């Protein structure tokens, strides 16, 4: 069938176009996704706790705000600041960085994390100026920054006392009743002052300013560009998981692995199956007998238990897993190709070619394989979903390759880290849905291809 003819027929199939569209979307996201995700370094740091430190833990997706009455502050990074440089009378340079934070929500973020890089011994103060005019001193320390170090201040972790002092400025008695270990500083800093601030804090909405004041006592000491990370109550497109990882990033990274596993697995599977099928059917004899016995053996071996056992014992990498899956899956295309080759072998044009003196390889490569090629593509597309699911299944029970970020891996961590119990639906549903979606798109594509390209009884 010629390309033009093929496209004409293909474009008429709705399922084919849907499948193709989805697959293209997946491929694009797979290739460029790394650039789109908010966390660029995620693929290498997926299991690096420090990388995700500033994220909120188990935060729902940001868009859930649309469905709740009390909207939580979403995660964001404040990287724009105003810098004021001044010099004290005694020659000490003072650098003041001001960050503006607009808080227009009902519930405050989980944390504010201030990072100040720099070098030397730098006394630093950080203050939070509230819209109601009150100002809280969050931090005052002389920070020892070795070469290229960074000072990290987490409001939740470090500013409990500062919160109590803020309250004390208005209500002494209340402040005395507060226990630094038990309060949430953010709940205080972002709430209206008043007696109910502990039991029922009301959000103080408006512009907040975070000021960082650094004293550079010596010309060798310096501070670099600070940043403020708002660790939101809601976060990102798909929220965060119990290890503070952005789920959306994980899903997008998973596309790459799914495509890789699916396409590589299906390509190898089909190539092996087609090659063996042609060889067995064309050459016949002992080779045929051997390969058919091999086919029968492999066909009847159950894949999943074998995978499970092997993974449990040998803890293989993803590549070995794919190889094992391929070693089982080639039987699918083998049988069909075997039958087709037997048929094509009897065609008059093959006979004519033999009469001319063609050797067997010429016939296989020039006459038989080209006829099988279109079917092979359909076969490839159709095996992708199953291969993806196999990998996911193996990962799910904890036997997959833990170094990769696949949807199966995400699902596994979700289940083992209590996503279901804790109702973290944004962690559990997306990977499963994605597996289904990718499987569906390849199934659509494969079915459409199959309908158009599948060999009819005659080869013409």
């Amino acid at each position: 069938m010629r390309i033009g003819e093929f496209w004409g027929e293909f474009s008429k199939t709705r399922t084919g176009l849907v499948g193709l569209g989805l697959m293209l979307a997946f491929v694009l996201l797979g290739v460029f996704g790394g650039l789109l995700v908010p966390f660029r370094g995620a693929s290498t740091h997926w299991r690096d706790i420090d990388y995700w430190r500033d994220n909120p833990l188990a935060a729902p997706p940001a868009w859930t705000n649309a469905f709740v009455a009390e909207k939580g502050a979403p995660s964001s990074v404040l990287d724009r600041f105003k810098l004021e440089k001044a010099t004290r009378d005694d020659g000490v340079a003072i650098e003041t960085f001001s960050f503006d934070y607009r808080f227009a929500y009902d519930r405050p973020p989980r944390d504010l994390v201030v990072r100040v890089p720099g070098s030397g011994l730098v006394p630093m103060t950080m203050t939070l100026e509230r819209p109601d005019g009150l100002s809280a001193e969050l931090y005052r320390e002389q920070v020892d920054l070795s070469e290229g170090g960074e000072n990290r201040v987490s409001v939740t972790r470090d500013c409990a006392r500062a919160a109590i002092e803020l309250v004390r400025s208005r209500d002494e008695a209340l402040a005395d009743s507060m226990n630094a270990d038990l309060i949430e500083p953010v709940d205080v800093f972002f709430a209206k002052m008043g007696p109910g601030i502990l039991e029922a804090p009301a959000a103080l909405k408006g512009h907040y300013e975070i000021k960082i004041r650094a004293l550079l006592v010596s010309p060798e000491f310096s501070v670099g560009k600070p940043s403020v990370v708002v660790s939101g109550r809601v976060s990102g497109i798909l929220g965060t998981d119990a290890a503070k990882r952005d789920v959306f990033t994980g899903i997008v990274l998973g596309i790459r692995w799914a495509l890789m596993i699916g396409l590589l697995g299906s390509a190898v599977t089909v190539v092996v199956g087609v090659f063996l099928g042609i060889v067995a059917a064309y050459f016949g004899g002992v080779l045929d007998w051997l390969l058919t016995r091999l086919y029968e053996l492999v066909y009847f071996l159950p894949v999943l238990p074998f995978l499970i056992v092997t993974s449990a014992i040998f803890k293989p990498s993803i590549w070995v897993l794919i190889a094992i899956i391929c070693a089982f899956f080639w039987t699918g295309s083998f049988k069909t190709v075997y039958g087709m080759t037997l048929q094509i072998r009897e065609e008059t044009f093959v006979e004519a070619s033999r009469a001319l003196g063609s050797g067997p390889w010429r016939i296989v490569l020039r006459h038989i394989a080209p006829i099988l090629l279109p079917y092979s593509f359909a076969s490839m597309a159709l095996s992708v979903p199953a291969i993806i699911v196999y990998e996911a299944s193996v990962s799910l029970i904890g036997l997959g390759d833990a170094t990769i970020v696949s949807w199966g891996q995400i699902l596994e961590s979700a289940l083992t880290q209590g996503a279901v119990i804790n109702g973290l639906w944004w962690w559990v549903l997306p990977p499963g849905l994605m597996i289904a979606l990718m499987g569906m798109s390849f199934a659509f594509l494969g079915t459409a291809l199959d309908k158009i390209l599948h060999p009819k009884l005659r080869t013409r």
Partner: protein
Amino acid sequence: MSDSSPSPGPGGIVLEVRDLAKEFVARKGRERVRAVDGMSFSLRRGEILGLVGESGCGKTTIGKLIMRLIEPSSGSIEVEGFRSGPRGGSGDLAYRRRVQMVFQDPYASMNPHFRIREVLEEPLLIHRLGKTRRERMAMAARVMEEVKMTPVADYLDRYPHMLSGGQRQRIAMARTLILRPSVIVADEPVSMIDLSTRAEILRLMKTIQEEMELSFIYITHDISTARYFADRIAVMYLGRIMEIGSQDEVIDRPVHPYTRALIEAVCEPVAGRARIARGPLAKGEIPSASDIPRGCRFHTRCMFAEEECSVLPEPELEDLGGGHLHACRRWREVAERA
């Protein structure tokens, strides 16, 4: 043996078949089918031999044997003194260059995914003729002109399904010519083509045959076309030759009862036959080749058979003179009665 240009054997004989036999084993050894059961004949340069017979007579098998698509069970085939060698060797290729085949189904004999130029190129590539693409295309163009498929450029890029049956058969002929063979085996080349186009192809084959002094084995069930095309005719029955001779001799003066029956059975486009019965020509139908009758294999159907025909061993071909041979023990009595 070196693959030099074709050399006719003694007396200009290009093809010599001796005691050729082919037995097929079917149904896991329980059935033995003797498709070809001892055939000998020779073909001269520039001669057309028609192999005529009904279904099951082995004519297609003989074609495949000569083409080395299947191996004989016994006997030998020599083309210009070449006996074929093991598959794929230089002897094998040397043999195949000299013998080419035109198949019955003009569409099925070409890979539908090949363009015409690829169809014509294949033999050149196999036999390593024409070192560059241009050389090969020139050779392809030449044979296309020989079969009158012009303008050549119009057809080279087409696929077989874009051509009519007659055109495809021309391309098939071109494919046989491109290696400059000595012998062409044509297996029912026009039976799947429309009547009004048949003559075109037959005429073309005759023209090419004359111009290039090719030898033809023309296999058919239609003895009328054999009359038109062949110089000599061999009548086959159940894997053996019953009668062979010049076409005048065999058709106008048949000797063997089977030949007589065949000729009587042919319909002619003449008026007034609708109310005339032909009467019985032969009894029953062709027996299976797995159970060939004893004695003369035709005796079960022969209208002239007597006891001796089933009891005595099968008659060998007897020469009546002038190259007219037949295998009937009682031919004199038959000639009197008929």
